[in-house]
């Protein structure tokens, strides 16, 4: 705004005690940081939700493509396996969607609402700053008149200046006090506000992952390869691959 020229031209007069100013800065600084954090978090959560959804979509695609394969018609076993996989993936997608919705409701929405308070805060601080500038200016004027010799017009002007100064000073004091009083309260309220969101987020994730674990555990059992560990499967694969490479029809040099 147009406040910037003020700051350069006018020397800072200590009409506001340093401690007060410092307190104010500190509180406001904390709140600014909080604002930044909430904004960033909102963006991150949205990205996270999108990534989750993309993941489950791609998982469903795996099983869909497998299903549409004519191999399924020929081989009943294969068909069973792929159907089981498909069911599992679809359930994964459903749970994921639900989790994202839950998070949306309990975390992202509250974040937005909390963030909407900040513009008011910034406006209030700006107004206080405005009032402060007014106050400074009028104070300077009063002091200027006070230094001049006490002639009639000068006295009249001095009186008038003092009259102008009074309401402005009171206004500034009021604003300052109000903000100093309420900013810590606002800052403190974040704890109680966000803790339920945090808990809900954790819980949503835990529920989701435990469900997933169960689904995939069941699926592993269904795909009738009981007890095959990964190493065994790996070895089998290697054996089959070398068998394939041994075939004369497979190009190798």
């Amino acid at each position, binding site marked *: 705004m147009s406040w910037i020229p003020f700051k350069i031209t006018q020397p800072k007069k200590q009409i506001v005690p340093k401690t007060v100013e410092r307190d104010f800065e500190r509180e406001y600084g904390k709140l600014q940081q909080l604002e930044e954090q909430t904004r960033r978090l909102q963006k991150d959560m949205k990205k996270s939700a999108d*990534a989750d959804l993309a993941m489950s979509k791609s998982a469903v695609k795996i099983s869909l493509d497998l299903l549409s394969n004519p191999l399924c018609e020929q081989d009943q076993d294969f068909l069973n396996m792929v159907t089981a996989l498909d069911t599992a993936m679809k359930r994964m997608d459903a749970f994921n969607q639900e989790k994202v919705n839950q998070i949306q409701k309990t975390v992202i929405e509250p974040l937005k609402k909390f963030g909407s308070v900040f513009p008011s805060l910034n406006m209030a601080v700006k107004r206080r700053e405005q009032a402060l500038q007014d106050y400074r200016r009028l104070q300077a004027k009063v002091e200027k008149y006070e230094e001049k010799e006490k002639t009639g017009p000068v006295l009249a002007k001095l009186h008038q200046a003092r009259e102008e100064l009074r309401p402005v000073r009171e206004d500034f004091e009021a604003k300052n006090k109000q903000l100093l009083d309420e900013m810590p309260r606002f800052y403190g309220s974040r704890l109680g506000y966000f803790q339920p969101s945090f808990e809900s987020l954790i819980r949503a994730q835990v529920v989701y992952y435990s469900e997933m674990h169960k689904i995939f555990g069941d699926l592993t059992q269904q795909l009738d390869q009981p007890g095959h560990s990964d190493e065994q499967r*790996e070895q089998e694969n290697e054996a089959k691959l070398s068998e394939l490479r041994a075939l004369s029809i497979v190009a190798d040099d």
Partner: protein
Amino acid sequence: MEVHYSLSFCLLQERNRPFQNIPLGSIVILKPHKVLIVKNYFQTQWKIYMQEGKPNLLDMGSLMIKPIQRVMKYPLLLCELRNSTPASHPDHRVLGDAFAAVKDINVNINELKRRKDLVLKYKKNDEDESLKDKLSKLNIHSISKKSKRVTNHLKILTRGESQVKDNTFNREEKLFRSLEKTVRHCVKNISFCVQHIQDAMPLALQSVRDLREISHSKDEEDGGCPETPSNASNPCRDFAAPLQRLVLTPLSALLSLFPGPHKLIQKRYDKLLDYNGYLQRSAGDESDLAKKEYEALNAQLVEELQVFNRAARGILRNCLCSFVARLGDLMLLAERAYSTVAPAPRLVSGISEIQNRLLEEVQNLNFVKDNSATFIERKLSFEKKKPMQIPPEMPRQNDTHRCQLLSTYRAEELYQAKRKCNATQELDINLLEGELVAVMEQNDPLGSTSRWLVDTGIVKGYVYSSFLKPYNPAKTQRGDSEANGTDADSFQEVDEQIFYAVHAFQARSDHELSLQEHQRVHILRFCDLSGNKEWWLAEAQGQQGYVPANYLGKMTYA
């Protein structure tokens, strides 16, 4: 002799088996997995030689060729034997059978060799050949072959099924192609899925960490245990690498094996076309050759495609199982990671209640109420509409006062109030519309020429000059109605009309008014002619013009 014959006959009963397992022709081509067979062969031979004390050791080439030579000798031997046996001898028939059997063996070996040769010939990768090589291969023979094939192909397309058909092959081929498509899709989809998982999980964890930071105060963090699931990014890392090894690598390797047989399948089709073409005509050497070639290639492909398909299916299945198992493990790890922070369960509805309540409390804080964006515009209008403080009843001017003024002052000093003026500053006076005043001085103590010292007959005080117009007795009657008329457009009853310029403003046209910093101006109208509230009609130092509203700051007076 007889013992010898029956022994060899027994051996020949087993005719095809030993020779099929070790195609003799291809021993010459030393494949790595066949070296073992050859080595064993050599070792046994060497042992035999050592046992028998035969000093004449053969070199590799002659050693290799020995079985083949032997096999080729048998028909000749048996033929001679049969020819020299009288027909009445009981062995004659047996010899005949033996001869036929040995000949069959040789034919089988030949056919097998043909298969391998054909496969080898057509397995060569065409992409290595440059255009020049391809062109050089063109000659009358190849062109005529190709054109015949095209004709036959069209014939089949238009007339339906060809006479030469192999259902087994067709089935296997279909399976082969679908397997290829499946494996390709699998590789692509699985790698996408893994990629997405790797993107999504760390993001989720980061959000949890950030939210935790906001929702917990610093003191708690220092004192509390490290609840942050910081090691949960590991499940993702441990997920990707094994998955690559167990699933993606085998599948990709499998995928790379698919293109090989394609060419052979294509060639087989060509041979089929050739053979089909010859079927129409009489049998001859060419048609025999075509038949043989086709059948050789077909048989080879059928046999090996079956193996291929079976193995490929097995690999695919294994990979899918591994994938699922890995996913399950990942989910378990993730669940554990998040569980370390497990809080007390709370209903969702409970959450929104708590939060709404808290938010209301916050919004009740004064600074929010005062400064909420939706209120700001209303606030300005509120302020304008603030109920006017009723000024203390002042004696109104009446005729006597007017007469007094008229008599005391000269005509040019007399002014009339255009509208109702309210005292805003010290020493100001209130005027009603139409009241007569006499101007005593055209400036005020502070030097501003816009405030004049006037005498109403009752009291003396300051009024803004813009409120006054020269008193013209003749026009008084009409003037009033005029004044009324001009008053029709909205002059809002505002207490605070005095504003000061927060910042200097440069007028860009005649309609605008230049302002200096901190210059006090008197606002006549709070909007411009088109109703735009951004521009206010201001008056300063006798000049009027529009100034931007946001350059002005209010001066409030008690």
